[in-house]
C-alpha cells in the first residue's frame, strides 16, 4: 500500500524524519519497503505555482499556443503545446535552469530555454511526467483551485510516498485512518478522524430501496444509502492527486469518492446507478449454479453455488466484495446513486476471487477480515463527501441490515502472561497507554488483570496473547534482553539413518567425490532411462499438478538420472577424472499415503587420471575404482561387503555387482550402460554406485569391532593358486580370510589375477598375500607353512584349486 505522508498528516502529526518514521513503522507495524520523495528535485526558486491569465495562438504553429502566465512576481509569456491549457488554471511553472525530467525520454535534465518556432519562451508549464509525478504527458498538470500563486511547488505538491507491505490479518492497515492510528500509538500523537457529518435532506431511503440478505452466513451486514441530484464529472483536484499518489486512476467524482473512502478507511464501497437498479431492491444471495454476469472489466463471469452475488429485482448486479456489474455502472448520465457498503465473510470473498482469478482492491481488503462496524463508518464518511464534493441531496436514513451483529469482544489478560510470553514486565501505565492508543478499552483490574474490549476494526485480536503482541510490538522488542533457555534438556533421540547419511557424506568427500544437490523433481522420460520397466513403483513416479517447469513435473524415484546429468554438464567444461555424488531421497509412491522417502547415496565417476610431468596418467577410471570407493566406505564403517554379479536396467551386464552386508543387499556398483550414458550425452565409460542407507544401517555394528593388537609378529607368505576361470575370486579370498588353525588367524589380500601363457586354457591364477599370526606366540616358518598347507587343501576341496607351479 502506498501511503502519502501529506495525506497521513491529515490524521496525525508526524514529527519524525522520514527514515526514522520508516524504521519505527517497520519495527512495530508493517514493513516499509521503501519510499519515494516527490519534489526532491524541484528547486524552490525555479519551480513554482503560477496562474494562466491568457492564451493566444502561436503565429507560426497550429499545435502550439502562447500562454501568458502570472508567476506571482511578474507576467511572462511561454510557448505551450498542451491541449488542456486554459485560462484561469493554476499550474506548475519552471524557469531556466530548473531540474526536471525530460518529457520524452523521462531522464533527468536541466531546463534550457530556446525560441520555439521563432517565439521566445520565458519558461515552461509542466506536465506530471516532467515533474516526475507520473508518466502522464498528454497535458499539463492542473493544480487545485485556490492554490497560492508564486509559492514553491514543493510546498504544495511535495510529498513522500511510503511503500508499505501489510499483513494478511490486518485489513484495517489498508486504510489511512488505521495506519495513522498506529503511527499515533508509536509516536505519542493524537489521531484525528475524518468528518462523517452530513445533512440528509432527501426523501426517506426506505421508500427508495429495500435490502434483504438471503445468505447471512456470507453477508454479515449490508448498508445502503441513496444520493440524488448528482452531476457526474471530474472529482476535485486534491482528491485526484491523492488517488494518483495511492496508485489509483481517477475516474469520476462518484467512483473517486468510493475509492477515496476505501483508501481512507480500508472498507470497500460500491456505487450503483440507482436508476439502473431494477425493482429498487437489493438481495444478497448465493449464485444459482451457472448464473452469469458481465463485470465492470467487461468480462462475462460464471458463478458456482457458493459465490455470493448482489442482485436487484431481476438478477445479479455485482459479485459481492469483488467487483460490480456492468449493467448498473455509474455513467455520465447518472443522477442518482445507490451506495452499498457491506461486510462479507472473508473466506467466501477469497474463495470467489481465487476461483474467478479476479483480485481487486476490494477483495484484497475483504479477504483479510474487516470488522462489520466499519461499514457504517465508511457509509457516513462517503455521504459527507458526496454532500461536500458533489453537492448531492442525501436521502433520509441509511438502510442497515445487520444479521451478523455481535457484541464487542472482551479479553481478560493476566498481567503475568505478558512476562510469561515476552520475558519482561511491562508497567501498567504502558499497557494502558499502548492499548488505549490502538483503540482498545482497557480496565485494569487490580492487582494483576486487564479487562480489554477489542475495537470493531480489529477482528484479528482474539486471545490474550494477541494483546501481548500489541503491547510487545509498540513497547519495542529492542527492550527484550537476550536470555538463554532454562530447564532440562529433552532426552536424546537416536537417529541412526541421519547419522549414517552424514558419515557417508564425509566418507565420499574424503574419497575425492564432490557433493552435488539436484532438484528432486524431474521428468518421467529421464526416470525411465535409469529404472527397470518392470519396477512398477519407480516407473510410476508421483506427479505434481502445477510444476514450476515441465522438466520438474515428477518426484524422482531414482537419483541416477540427476547425478548423470550433473556429470554430463560438468564434463563439457572439465577434463580429467570426475567424481560426483549426491545423497537424497527416492520418493516411492504408496497407494493412499505419503510416499516413502528412501535415502540413497548415488555416485558417478569416470574420465582419465591426469598424467603430469612425464609420469603416469592417461589410464581411465574403471569398475574397480568405483568398487574400491564402496569398499573403503564400508571398511570405514567397520563392515565388509559381499559382492555378487548382478544385472540391472541401465547398467552394463557383466560389469555390475550388488553388494550386501549381512543378509541384506545394501547397494550396487557397476558401469553405466553405454547406451544409457549416451542418452545423457556422456561418451566415455562412466561408473556408478549406490549405497542404500536404510538397508545398510540395519547391519552396521553399533561400534566398530575392536581387536587388541597382537604382541607377536605375523609371518607373511604368498600363495598362488590355479582355479577354473569361473570361480569368483571373492569366494577364494573370503575362504582364505576365514581360515583358522590352532590359534592362528589369517589375513589375506588378493594381489593378482592372471590368465594366459603358463596357465591352462579355461583357468586363471590368483595370487594371495597371507599374514599368519598367533595371539600367544611368535610363529615359526614351519608352523606358518603348515597353516598355509591346510588353507591350500581347503581351497582344493572347495574350488578345485591347485598350487601354481
Amino acid at each position, binding site marked *: 500500500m502506498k501511503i502519502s505522508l501529506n495525506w497521513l498528516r491529515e490524521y496525525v502529526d508526524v514529527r519524525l524524519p522520514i527514515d526514522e518514521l520508516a*524504521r519505527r513503522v517497520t*519495527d512495530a507495524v508493517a*514493513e516499509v519497503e521503501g519510499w519515494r520523495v516527490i519534489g526532491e528535485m524541484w528547486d524552490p526558486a525555479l519551480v513554482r505555482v503560477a496562474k494562466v491569465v491568457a492564451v493566444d495562438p502561436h503565429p507560426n504553429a497550429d499545435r502550439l499556443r502562447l500562454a501568458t502566465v502570472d508567476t506571482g512576481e511578474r507576467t511572462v509569456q511561454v510557448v505551450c503545446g498542451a491541449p488542456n491549457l486554459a485560462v484561469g488554471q493554476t499550474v506548475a511553472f519552471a524557469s531556466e535552469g530548473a531540474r526536471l525530467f525530460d518529457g520524452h525520454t523521462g531522464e533527468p535534465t536541466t531546463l534550457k530555454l530556446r525560441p520555439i518556432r521563432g517565439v521566445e519562451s520565458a519558461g515552461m508549464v509542466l506536465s506530471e511526467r516532467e515533474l516526475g509525478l507520473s508518466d502522464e504527458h498528454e497535458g499539463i498538470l492542473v493544480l487545485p483551485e485556490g492554490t497560492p500563486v508564486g509559492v514553491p511547488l514543493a510546498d504544495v505538491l511535495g510529498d513522500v510516498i511510503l511503500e508499505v507491505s501489510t*499483513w*494478511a*490479518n490486518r485489513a484495517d492497515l489498508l486504510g489511512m485512518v488505521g495506519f495513522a492510528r498506529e503511527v499515533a500509538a508509536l509516536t505519542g500523537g493524537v489521531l484525528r478522524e475524518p468528518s462523517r457529518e452530513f445533512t440528509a435532506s432527501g426523501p426517506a431511503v426506505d421508500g427508495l430501496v429495500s435490502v434483504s440478505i438471503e445468505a447471512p452466513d456470507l453477508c454479515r451486514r449490508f448498508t445502503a444509502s441513496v444520493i440524488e441530484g448528482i452531476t457526474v464529472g471530474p472529482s476535485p483536484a486534491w482528491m485526484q492527486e491523492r488517488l494518483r499518489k495511492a496508485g489509483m486512476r481517477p475516474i469520476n467524482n462518484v467512483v473517486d469518492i468510493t475509492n477515496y473512502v476505501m483508501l481512507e478507511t480500508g472498507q470497500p464501497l460500491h456505487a450503483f446507478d440507482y436508476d439502473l437498479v431494477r425493482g429498487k431492491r437489493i438481495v444478497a444471495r448465493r449464485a444459482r449454479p451457472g448464473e452469469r454476469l458481465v463485470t465492470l472489466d467487461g468480462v462475462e463471469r460464471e458463478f458456482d453455488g457458493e459465490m455470493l452475488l448482489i442482485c436487484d429485482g431481476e438478477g445479479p448486479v455485482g459479485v459481492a466484495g469483488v467487483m460490480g456489474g456492468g449493467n448498473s455502472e455509474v455513467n455520465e448520465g447518472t443522477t442518482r446513486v445507490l451506495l452499498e457498503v457491506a461486510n462479507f465473510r*472473508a473466506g*467466501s470473498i*477469497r*474463495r470467489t476471487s481465487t476461483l474467478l482469478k479476479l483480485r481487486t482492491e476490494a477483495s484484497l481488503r475483504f*479477504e*483479510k477480515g474487516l470488522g462489520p462496524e466499519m461499514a457504517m463508518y465508511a457509509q457516513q464518511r462517503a455521504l459527507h463527501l458526496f454532500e461536500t464534493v458533489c453537492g448531492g441531496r442525501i436521502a433520509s436514513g441509511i438502510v442497515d441490515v445487520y444479521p451478523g451483529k455481535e457484541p464487542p469482544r472482551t479479553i481478560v489478560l493476566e498481567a503475568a502472561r505478558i*512476562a510469561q*510470553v*515476552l*520475558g*519482561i514486565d511491562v508497567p501498567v501505565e504502558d499497557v494502558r497507554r499502548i492499548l488505549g492508543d490502538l483503540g482498545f478499552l482497557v480496565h485494569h483490574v487490580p492487582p494483576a488483570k486487564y479487562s480489554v474490549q477489542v475495537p470493531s476494526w480489529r477482528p484479528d485480536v482474539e*486471545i490474550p*496473547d494477541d494483546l*501481548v*503482541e500489541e503491547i*510487545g510490538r509498540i513497547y519495542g*522488542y*529492542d527492550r*527484550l534482553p*537476550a*536470555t*538463554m*533457555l*532454562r*530447564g532440562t*534438556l*529433552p532426552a536424546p*533421540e537416536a537417529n541412526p539413518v541421519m547419522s549414517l547419511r552424514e558419515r557417508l*557424506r564425509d566418507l565420499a*568427500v574424503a574419497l*575425492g567425490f564432490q*557433493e552435488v*544437490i*539436484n*532438484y*528432486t523433481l524431474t521428468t518421467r522420460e529421464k526416470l525411465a532411462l535409469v529404472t527397470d520397466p518392470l519396477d512398477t513403483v519407480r516407473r510410476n513416479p*508421483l*506427479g*505434481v499438478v*502445477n510444476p514450476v517447469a515441465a522438466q520438474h513435473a515428477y*518426484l524422482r524415484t531414482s537419483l541416477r538420472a540427476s547425478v548423470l546429468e550433473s556429470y554430463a*554438464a*560438468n564434463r563439457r567444461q572439465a577434463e*580429467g*577424472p570426475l*567424481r*560426483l555424488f549426491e545423497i537424497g531421497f527416492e520418493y516411492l509412491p504408496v497407494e*493412499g499415503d*505419503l510416499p516413502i*522417502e528412501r535415502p540413497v547415496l548415488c555416485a558417478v565417476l569416470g574420465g582419465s587420471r*591426469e598424467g*603430469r610431468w612425464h*609420469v*603416469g596418467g592417461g589410464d581411465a577410471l574403471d569398475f574397480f575404482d568405483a568398487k574400491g570407493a564402496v569398499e573403503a566406505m564400508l571398511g570405514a564403517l567397520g563392515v565388509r561387503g559381499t559382492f555378487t554379479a548382478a544385472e540391472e536396467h541401465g547398467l552394463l551386464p557383466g560389469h555390475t555387482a550388488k553388494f550386501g552386508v549381512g543378509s541384506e543387499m545394501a547397494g550396487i556398483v557397476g558401469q553405466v550402460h553405454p547406451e544409457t550414458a549416451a542418452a545423457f550425452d556422456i561418451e566415455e565409460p562412466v561408473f556408478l554406485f549406490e549405497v542404500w542407507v536404510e538397508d545398510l544401517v540395519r547391519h552396521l555394528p553399533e561400534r566398530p569391532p575392536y581387536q587388541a593388537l597382537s604382541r607377536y609378529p605375523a609371518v607373511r607368505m604368498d600363495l598362488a593358486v590355479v582355479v577354473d576361470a569361473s570361480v569368483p575370486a571373492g569366494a577364494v579370498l573370503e575362504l582364505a580370510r576365514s581360515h583358522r588353525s590352532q590359534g592362528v588367524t589369517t589375513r589375506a589380500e588378493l594381489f593378482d589375477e592372471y590368465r594366459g601363457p603358463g596357465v591352462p586354457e579355461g583357468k586363471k591364477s590368483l595370487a594371495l598375500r597371507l599374514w599368519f599370526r598367533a595371539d600367544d606366540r611368535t610363529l615359526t616358518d614351519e608352523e606358518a607353512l603348515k597353516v598355509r598347507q591346510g588353507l591350500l587343501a581347503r581351497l582344493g576341496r572347495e574350488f578345485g584349486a591347485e598350487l601354481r607351479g
Partner: protein
Amino acid sequence: MTTETGSLAGLEAEALAALEAAADDAALDRWRAEWLGRQDGRVTVLLRGIREVAPDERAAYGAAVNALKQALEARLEARRQALKRAELERLAREGAIDVTLPGRPQPLGRLHPITRTLRDCLDAFRAMGFRVAEGPEVEWDRYNFDAARIPEDHPARDMWDTIWVNTLIDGKRRMLLRTHTTPNQIRVMERTPQPPVRVVVPGKCYRQEATDATHEWMLTQIEGLAVDEGVRMSDLKGVLYEWARAMFGTDRRIIFHHSYFPFVEPGVEMAIDCFICRGDGRQCHTCHGTGWIEILGAGMVHPEIIDNAGYDASRVTGFAFGIGVERVAMLRWGIEDIRHFYSNDLRFLGQF
C-alpha cells in the same frame, strides 16, 4: 717423551692435511694405505716400533699411537661421508626439477555449500541443547497448513505458493510438497507426550514461484522449536543471537521486527546488522542502505498449537523459527545468485 708426543701431533697434522686433499674414493684409499695400511702404513709402523721404546714408556706410547690411529680412522670415515653427500647433492643439482611446475592433481572432494552451511547452523543449535529431527518433504495439507492455523480461503496462504501432488484422496487434493518446515512443529509435538521439546528440523521445501537471483523454488530450511514451561520471547532472542554470532561473527547485533505468521503469536522477523557495510553503506547491495539484513521469521508458538499438542497452554509456552539456509549461505560467502546452488557447476561448487 715430549719429543715422542710432539712428533705424534706433527704426524696427525700431516695426515689430516693429506686427508683434506683427497677428493675422491681412490685418493681416500691411497691415503688409507699410506697411513693405516696393515703392512707399512705409517701409523702401523709406529705401533710396531713399540718394541724399541723403553719398557716403562711403552704403555703410554702404545696408548698415544692407538689414539692417533682411531682418530685418523674416524676422520677418514667422516671424510668419506662428506664426499658421498657432496657427490649426491651435485648429481641432484644437475638434475634439478622445475619446482614451479604445478603439483599433480589429487582427488579432492568437497561438501556442497548448502550442506556446509546447514551443518554449521545445526552445530550452533546443538551447542544450545537442540536435538536434530526430520520430517517428510511430501506432506499432508493438514500438517502444512491447517494444523499451522492457515485454513483454506485464508489470505495467509498467499505467503506460500504451493506445489500440489497430483493424487486425489477421497476426491480431494491433500498431498503437497511442503512449503516450509513448519509442519514439523506439529509432528514433533505429536510424538513428544510431554515437554520439554528442543529441536531443529532441517529439510527441503518447495514453492511454486518463478526463479530469479533471489528466488528459488526448491529451498532448504531449518525449523527451530523450543517448548517448555518458562520459554520466553527473550530466550528466542538469546538463542537466535548466539546462532547469528556463530554464523556471522561474534560482534553481530540482532533486532526483531513485528511480523505475522498464523502459527506464532507474537510473530517477528529477525534482522542482523549489516556486516558488509557496517551500517553506513547507502549503496550497499546487501542491506540496501538500511544497515540491517532481514534473515528469518520467528515467534512464540500460538497457544492453540500448544493446546492441540495436548500440553497445557496456560503453563507451557514455546518459540519457533524458520531459517532459509540458502540465504545464510549467500550472505556468508557473498553469493550473488541463488540459482547457483542447484545448477551444480563444479566451477561454483569447487570454491567452497
